[in-house]
């Protein structure tokens, strides 16, 4: 057993009954370095101050109670080792900062009101199976892969870590958000569900729905269970746009298509073309459509602001960015590869990103990393067997000497 070591926890305290503002309390605890921040908190509670409020039960990252922010990052207290937390200290002196999650009102200390935000949003997505009729006498006979596939979103423990740091939700509190949309995929991806189209239409037409996500990846980083909520949102979009051809009134789907076309043609975003195409149609002629004109007019204040803040220059915006021809061809090849496939391969980190013996790279694995596992089914291509630390988007590498893929 490794020796005991001292760690200092800096805990955000808030007592709603005191009338006082939140404050910081520091406690020095003694534990082996691989013990969790939760165990540290529990020791502080047991030895020094029983009034520290923190929800917890299983201690093994399955009940989802102890979502907090550690050194500014959301996660489970029971799933974060003390030594790692110490190493990522923001204060520079190794002190581990523990705060309640964001985007949800604080009730007391580390306890937030998940009902007011998280569960309300889950309720929004009709979170139960609407079973196909007739219900069979025995089980529904469905593809083996389909059930493994939805296990990824089933693996969500509703801890709220992704909700805590969702940037879109910060701007638009009504955004349905990563956890609830991942839950929605659990039904849309379930072959037994009878209302996949209705669900998708509902989520696409909602101005706070699937097109409200900005691709920031924060939820993927935050999730302790490898659910990769953003990927589930993207899968909802592909199902809605590609499979069911849902052209939502928010222009989310058209906007995404315009984006995709512009990158194919120019290699980089062509800002001046994006808006007109999103509203007027996905071609050079889009700008002559009345809807495009109207949208351009409406967007003038935003455009002005962009120019003033130098987010775009008039020249680049109007004439587009230029990239070398070879690069442009490389981009085109990516499009061809993807579009030539018979089946759409879903970028599902849970399935494609697990850490196959990194020191003895298997050829099919490197292919997986680069192309997203072209030509492989979910079952062939590993399973939701990876742990989140192995996913390519995780920044920290395992100090035990596990090179990241």
């Amino acid at each position, binding site marked *: 057993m490794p020796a005991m070591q001292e760690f200092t926890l800096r805990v955000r305290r808030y007592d709603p009954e005191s009338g006082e503002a939140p404050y910081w309390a520091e406690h020095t605890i003694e534990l082996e370095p691989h013990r969790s921040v939760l165990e540290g908190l529990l020791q502080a509670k047991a030895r020094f101050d*029983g*009034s520290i409020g923190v929800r917890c039960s299983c201690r*093994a990252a399955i009940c989802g109670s102890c979502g907090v922010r550690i050194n500014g990052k959301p996660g489970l207290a029971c799933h974060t080792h003390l030594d790692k937390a110490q190493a990522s200290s923001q204060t520079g002196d190794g002190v581990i900062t523990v705060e309640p999650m964001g985007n949800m009102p604080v009730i007391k200390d580390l306890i937030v009101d998940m009902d007011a935000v998280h569960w309300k949003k889950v309720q929004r997505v009709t979170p139960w199976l609407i079973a196909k009729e007739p219900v069979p006498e025995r089980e529904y006979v469905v593809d*083996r892969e389909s059930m493994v596939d939805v296990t990824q979103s089933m693996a969500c423990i509703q801890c709220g870590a992704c909700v805590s740091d969702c940037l879109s939700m910060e701007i638009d509190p009504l955004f349905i958000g990563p956890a609830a949309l991942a839950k929605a995929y659990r039904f849309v991806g379930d072959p037994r569900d009878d209302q996949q189209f209705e669900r998708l239409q509902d989520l696409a037409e909602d101005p706070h729905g699937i097109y409200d996500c900005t691709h920031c990846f924060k939820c993927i980083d935050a999730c302790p269970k490898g659910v990769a909520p953003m990927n589930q949102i993207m899968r909802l979009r592909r199902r809605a746009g590609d499979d069911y051809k849902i052209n939502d009134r928010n222009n989310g789907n058209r906007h995404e298509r315009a984006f995709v076309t512009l990158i194919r043609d120019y290699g980089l975003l062509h800002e001046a073309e994006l808006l007109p195409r999103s509203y007027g149609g996905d071609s050079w002629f889009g700008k002559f459509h009345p809807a495009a004109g109207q949208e351009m007019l409406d967007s003038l204040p935003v455009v002005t602001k962009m120019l003033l803040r130098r987010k775009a220059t008039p020249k680049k915006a109007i004439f587009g960015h230029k990239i070398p021809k070879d690069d442009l061809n490389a981009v085109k090849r990516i499009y061809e590869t993807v579009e030539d496939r018979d089946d759409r391969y879903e970028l599902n980190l849970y399935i494609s990103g697990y850490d196959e013996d990194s020191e003895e790279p298997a050829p099919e694995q490197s292919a997986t990393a680069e192309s997203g596992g072209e030509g492989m089914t979910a079952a062939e291509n590993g399973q939701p067997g990876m742990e989140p630390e192995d996913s390519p988007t995780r920044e920290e590498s395992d100090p035990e000497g596990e090179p990241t893929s």
Partner: protein
Amino acid sequence: MPAHDVLIIGAGLAGQRAALAAAEAGASVAIMSKVHPVRSHSVAAAGGINAAINPADDWRSHAYDTVKGSDFLGDQDAIEVMCSEAPHEVMHLEHIGVTFHRNETGHLDLRAFGGASMKRTAYVADITGQAILHVLYEQLMKHHETVDRYEEWFVTSLVQGEDGTCIGVIARDIRTGTMEVFRAKNVILASGGAGQCFKPTTNGLICTGDGIAQAYRIGAPLMDMEMIQYHPTCLVENGFLITEGARGEGAHLLNANGERFMEKYAPNKMELASRDVVSRAEQTEINEGRGVGPDGVGIYLDVTVVPKKRTLEALREIVNIGKDFAGVDITREPIMIRPGQHYIMGGVKTDIWGRTPVDGLYAAGEVACVSVHGGNRLGANSLLDTLIFGRRSGEHAAERSAQMAMPVIPDSRMLEDVKEIDDIVGRERSGKRISEIKDELGTELNRNVAVFREAEGLDHALETVKRLKEEAKTAYIDDRGTVFNQDVLGAIELGYMLDCAECIVTAAIERKESRGAQFRTDFPERDDDEWLKHIDLTMNGDGPDVSYSEVTFTQWQPEERKY
């Protein structure tokens, strides 16, 4: 004052299933839990759920395996009910959305589990409990108009009418500290086990025996309390559970000499003998000096013999647990495990409809003892137990409600509970801390009421528990507030745990034989002539009275138990 036909305490699998069944039967239903329902400890059940759904299987075979697993202490009428209704229940779960894994033909896949004569465990990777719990909660969200949810409410006591029937509960809203009386025609306890009496345990911090103690305190008898399951594969580090599914998928157990020692103890079933047998075998290896690790207190669980792809697909969670909590990649190297406290077979005595001898009070799931598990529970039978008897309790309670008037409880009835909480909050800081007492209790029980037991150790444990009960009366807390005062709830929970512990130790002292999970080194043989009977404990003043009840036999007579 809220009033419901059926009030369910606890929102794990048993509680949620009961709520849905009662609501479907037309009753007005409320479900109350001290944590949000999806935090309930059912969430940690990993491996799967048993049911004879393979056409080549037969529920009688499942029932016989269960009877044998129980070391013939299980009541066979109850076991027949559970096993014969199992296939229908699993199909029901499938229909409401549980994402059970499929085989190549698209039908439910089944995996091998301990003590079972064939593959009959349906599963969702190794998050079966989580998957079912979350799907039941989906159904509660769907039926939010017919099932009232009181999430993060803590029950302080059960209320009895003048004739002794259970007519409601007193509870505290954890978020505000408000106390309230809940009237109910029927109360169903579904608040889980008491693993926190032991340290370490695989059980969550919330498993503090609340329901067992609450029922005991109003006179409901407890049964089979000595039967504590030690799970064979818990991390040496911290007692976390490694699912039996690992052995079901083919993993081996190895001692320090690299031997698959189960050959000696269970030559036919090997690693898949029943849990009591495997735990005892491991402990014997450790005690005889063939343990692994620096202190020789562990056994190797070797999952590397399972194809890696299969491990990553079907044992995902324990790959994570190995990495996160023991620093071991189980796909590459063996992991150190040992037996650890996991489950209590005993609990509040009920019949096959979940009825306790107290009218109006039902119990289902780990809090209850039907008894389907007898001396030892088979893996993947606990989820089944919760669902079958949760549903039956819900249905029965709903039916009973239809013929009743709503009981009346004066508001003043809760003054005692209010005062008790005020007293705890107001205690002087002179005694012990709650956490100290809890620690000592857990350590004591894990030392003396574990895999191997004998009179001296058990007597020591009983003395310790009695002393701790005294010390708990003056133990102090820090939190003086009302909002989320977890401290004061911890003090009440400690009281529940101490009552449970006293009953566990008393029953273990009483049973002077070795059967199932109870192995007495001073009485190493099973003694059917004397001890083929249940031990019932009833509260009398400050301690339990002991009595006995018959085991129900239907088809299977006791025989020597070999794996």
